[in-house]
């Protein structure tokens, strides 16, 4: 009679500790996806599991067509998985919602709205007051370095500027996690590196959790706390590589030995997979 009681007691004390243990922000458990098409079934994603910690910057690196976008769209709730579940703050996600902001590779600003109206689009839907919207818009315009552009329309912006506004729009909505699907994929190399620094600044300031997809190895290292490498299609997680470079990251770190080592390791992992996908 004594022993079980002790057990109950032990459980009790454990429960008191639980709230203090930081549980992962995002948990992906056995998520898999099969697309049914005319030409048969495509396994876009094999059962995959991983977690993202609160405030962590995770990049996913993988060969083309390995299911990176699919994973992100499932987390966003834009696509349904065939198996498993996605937990955000311990809650199973069910359809898209403003708690998961997203930035796409394609330009998705509303062309009929000004920069400011784009940034406050989600806030307006939420019923945030005009004054608060103005304040937030000012803050995020400054954060992305586009003060003075609030009245411009998207057509008047360069590709890099558009993506900066898209990031500001997603952040202004104060999501729990920011999902980014190759947001700089369509930009030239110079703009890309500048955008990476802008994003890191915004991340450090907002302390958001970010899940970022890329197939640029440099980008994946420079931004991340952890790089997740995926296998060729059907994709699944191949390896997690923690990046221990100092924060805040500086452009000069890209030429450091440490960076070079990460790059070498990742390049060989990716090459293996890319070769497989060609076969």
């Amino acid at each position, binding site marked *: 009679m004594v022993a079980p009681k002790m057990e109950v007691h032990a459980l009790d004390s454990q429960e008191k500790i639980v709230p203090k243990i930081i549980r992962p922000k995002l948990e992906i458990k056995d998520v898999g996806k099969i697309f049914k098409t005319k030409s048969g079934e495509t396994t876009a994603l094999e059962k995959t599991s991983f977690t993202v910690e609160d405030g962590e910057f995770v990049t996913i690196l993988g060969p083309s067509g390995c299911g990176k976008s699919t994973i992100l*769209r499932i987390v*966003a*709730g*834009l696509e349904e998985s065939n198996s498993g579940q996605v937990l955000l703050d311990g809650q199973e996600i069910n*359809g*898209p*919602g*403003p708690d*998961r*902001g*997203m930035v*796409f590779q*394609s330009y*998705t600003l*509303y*062309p*009929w*709205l000004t920069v400011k109206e784009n940034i406050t*689009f*989600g806030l307006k*839907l*939420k019923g945030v007051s005009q004054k608060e919207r103005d304040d937030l818009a000012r803050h995020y315009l400054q954060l992305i370095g586009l003060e003075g552009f609030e009245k411009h*329309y*998207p*057509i*008047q912006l360069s590709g890099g500027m558009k993506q900066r506004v*898209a990031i500001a*729009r*997603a952040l202004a*909505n104060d*999501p729990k996690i920011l*999902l980014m699907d190759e947001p700089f994929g369509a930009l030239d190399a110079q703009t890309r590196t500048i955008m990476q620094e802008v994003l890191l600044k915004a991340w450090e300031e907002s302390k958001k959790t970010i899940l970022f997809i890329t197939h640029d190895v440099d980008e994946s290292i420079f931004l991340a706390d952890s790089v997740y490498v995926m296998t060729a299609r059907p994709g699944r997680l191949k390896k997690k590589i923690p990046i221990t470079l100092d924060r805040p990251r500086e452009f000069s770190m890209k030429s450091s030995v440490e960076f070079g080592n990460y790059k070498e390791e990742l390049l060989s992992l990716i090459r293996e997979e890319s070769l497989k996908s060609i076969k």
Partner: protein
Amino acid sequence: METKWFTPNKEISKMIYTSAGFVTFIVVLGIWSLLSYGGFVNPLFLPTPTAVLAAAIELFKSGEILSDIGISFSRVLTGFLVAAFIGIPLGILMGSLRIMEGAFEPLIGFIRYMPASAFIPLLILWIGLGETEKMAVIFLGTFFQLTLMVMDVTKNVQNDLIDVSYTLGAKNFQVFTKVILPASLPGIVDTLRITFGWAWTYLVVAEIVGASSGLGYMIMQASRFLQPEKIIVGILIIGLLGLITDILFKSIYRASFSWMRKDGY
């Protein structure tokens, strides 16, 4: 001659652009003058420009053409407005909800190949020879095309634009009103401009059968009394009215969608 005039997609000055259109008009007028003044064709088939001008002045002086224009215009406008009023919302729904597309696309796609003019005898049986019948012809002539064109415009709204809206917290209804509608509005206005042009062409068909007023009726009467210059005046007026409404739609487009232009004007 400058080579850039004949380089594909190359911009030319506004002046040259306008002059090119002017030259085409002069050439057509020149051929007409040559054929008619030169006596190459019987004036009963092709009257001279001066005869047409005289007929036009006569028709406007007596004022009878003004009431014909008014009646024709109101017929075109009402028939077209009814078509737009139903066709725009239906087209948007068909373009964004697969269930609506599935329900209506086959039927509308089928009916649109039935000539509106062939419905006239049926329409006369059903609703008589009154104004409603004329408007019904205009409606039948434009409604189905308009609806399908609006559907296409709506379908072309970028998928990512809709997806990103969901991640910003938009609900289904808000995606309709705040994303799909504004995104397809320029295309819808353009569709209206094009289909309104077609409405004018159906007008004559509507007024040739069983009408006692309107421009189409005037043209038919002139044919009966062998007055080709009056026919040409009627045709030119319809053309002008069509052109004016086209310009009107274009200026609405320009004024409403400045966000589509880099210079913002």
